[in-house]
C-alpha cells in the first residue's frame, strides 16, 4: 500500500510548498510512489491517518497549536518543512516587540479580538521526527529526504557546513571580495546555492550541530564587524543564536 502523505501550512509564505509543487519533472513519479491525501494548495482536508506529514510555517496562535497537535496525533512521522517550521526562520525577527505592539502596528487598535503569540517552531509544541531545512527548502534535498522515507529509512542531514560544500564546488570565497558569509556556521545541503549565484550565505538552513562561533566571530571582527553587526548577521535566520564564545 502506498504511504499516505500530507502537506500542511501554518504561518509562513508557503514558498516551501511551492518548491515542492515546482518539482514538476519528478512530481508525477512521486505520485506513483505515494498517496498525497492532503495538500491545501492543491486539494482539501480529509482528516485521515497519515504516514508522513510535512508541516510548513511557524506556530503563532492557540488555534494553530490545536491544529498542529491534531495533525501530530494522526501522523506516524511529522517533518518540519522549511525554516519557519524548523527554527522559526525569518518570523523570529518580530520577537523584539510585544505581541500587542505587533498586532497594533499591523492591524491598528480597532481590531481588539486578535490573539497573537510570538511565532515558535513546531518543536515547541509537538515531537518532530525530522526536518527539511532552508528558506525556502531545497527541492533536491526534499526529494532525497522523501526517497529515504519511502524506503523506510530515516534521512540524515549533512553534518558539515555550507563552507565545505562551497569549497567542493570551487566557488571563490566571498571574503575574497570583502563580503561576509555565514557559510562556516550554516548546515550544508543547499549546494551553496546563494554563493554560486553571486550572493553570500545568510544562514537560512540553521547552524551545524556544534558551530565554532567563537573563532568565527573573531574572523568577523577582523573584517571590521562590531558585536551588533554580528548579531544582525545572525538575526536574519538564527535569532536565538548563542552567547559569544
Amino acid at each position, binding site marked *: 500500500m502506498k504511504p499516505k502523505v500530507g502537506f500542511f501550512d501554518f504561518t509562513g509564505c508557503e514558498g516551501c510548498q511551492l518548491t515542492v509543487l515546482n518539482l514538476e519533472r519528478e512530481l508525477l513519479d512521486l505520485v506513483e510512489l505515494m498517496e498525497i491525501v492532503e495538500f491545501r494548495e492543491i486539494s482539501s482536508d480529509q482528516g485521515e491517518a497519515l504516514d508522513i506529514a510535512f508541516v510548513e510555517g511557524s506556530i503563532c496562535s492557540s488555534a494553530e497549536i490545536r491544529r498542529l497537535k491534531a495533525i501530530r496525533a494522526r501522523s506516524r512521522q511529522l517533518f518540519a518543512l522549511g525554516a519557519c517550521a524548523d527554527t522559526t526562520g525569518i518570523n523570529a525577527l518580530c520577537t523584539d516587540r510585544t505581541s500587542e505592539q505587533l498586532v497594533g502596528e499591523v492591524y491598528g487598535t480597532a481590531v481588539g479580538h486578535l490573539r497573537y503569540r510570538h511565532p515558535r517552531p513546531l518543536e515547541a509544541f509537538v515531537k518532530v521526527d525530522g526536518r527539511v531545512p532552508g528558506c525556502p527548502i531545497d527541492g533536491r534535498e526534499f526529494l532525497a529526504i522523501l526517497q529515504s522515507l519511502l524506503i523506510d529509512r530515516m534521512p540524515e542531514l549533512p553534518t*558539515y*557546513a555550507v*563552507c*565545505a560544500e562551497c*569549497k*567542493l564546488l*570551487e*566557488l*571563490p*570565497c566571498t571574503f*575574497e*571580495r570583502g563580503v561576509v558569509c555565514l557559510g*562556516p*556556521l550554516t548546515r550544508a545541503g543547499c549546494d551553496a546555492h546563494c554563493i554560486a549565484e553571486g550572493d553570500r550565505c545568510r544562514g537560512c538552513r540553521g547552524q*551545524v550541530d*556544534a558551530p*565554532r562561533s*567563537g*573563532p*568565527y566571530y*573573531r*574572523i568577523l571582527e577582523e573584517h571590521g564587524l562590531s558585536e551588533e553587526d554580528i548579531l544582525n548577521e545572525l538575526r536574519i535566520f538564527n535569532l536565538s543564536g548563542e552567547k559569544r564564545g
Partner: protein
Amino acid sequence: MTQALIAKTKLADLVSFLASCGKVVGPVPLGHGQFKFAEVSSLAEMALDYIPTILPPKKYFMPQYETLLRYDGADGQQMQAVVEVEELVLFGVHTCDLAGIQCLNVVFSDRPRDLHYMIRKNHITLIGLECSDYCDGFASCAMLRNHLPKGGYDLFFSELSDGYFVDIKTHKGEQLVEESGLFEPVSDAAREQLQELRRSKKQIFRSEVPIRYQDIPRLFDETFDSDVWTRIGEKCLSCGNCTNVCPTCY
C-alpha cells in the same frame, strides 16, 4: 627521445591538438585571484601563472563522489564493481600538485591495490609546468623541496625565453610529442637556458621556514603536546576544508 623543445608560439596549437583528441583540463581564473582546474579547449582559457587552485587535481584521481559498486536488489546483492573513468589530460600542473599526486599514488598502489584509483590514474595524462618564481607569498614548496620536478608526470614543461624545455618521462608522453608534430629536438642553447633557470631558482627558492627538511618528522613528533596546536585549534572553525583543499588528504 627523453627531452624535446616546443616554441611558445606553438603552445596554443598543442592545447588545441590535445583538446581535439579528448578532454583537457587546465588552470582557469575564477576572478578575485582564485583559480580552479576545469575543462578547456584552448590555451587562452588558461592562466599558467596561477596560484594553487581551490581544489587540487586530486579531484580527478579520487572524486568526492564516485560509484564504486552497482547492484540490483532483485539479484541477491551480487555487487558489480565499477570504475567511472574518462581519458583526461591535466595541463600545467605545478610541482607542488605533482608531489601531492605522487603521495596518493603511494597510498593506493600499496598492496592491496585500489583498482578504482589505479585504473583512473592510468587514464590521466599529466603535463607538468615548472614555476620559475614563487606563485605567491604563502608558498612553502622549497621547505619540502617540491619547487623542483621530482617525476610523477608524463611531460614536464620548463619555460625558456621563447620556448619550453620538455622532459619526457613516459611512453604516453613520448607518443603525445610524436603525434602532435609540434616539438623539436633540444638544442645546446636550450639546455644551457634550463641550467640557468635552475641556477636562478636556487637563489629565489629558499626554505621558507627556518628548519631543516630532514628534521620535519622529528619536529612534528616532539611537538605533539605543544601549546602551538592548542592556539591553532582555537582558530579552527571545524569546517573540514583543510582536508578538502589538501593535495593529499582525503
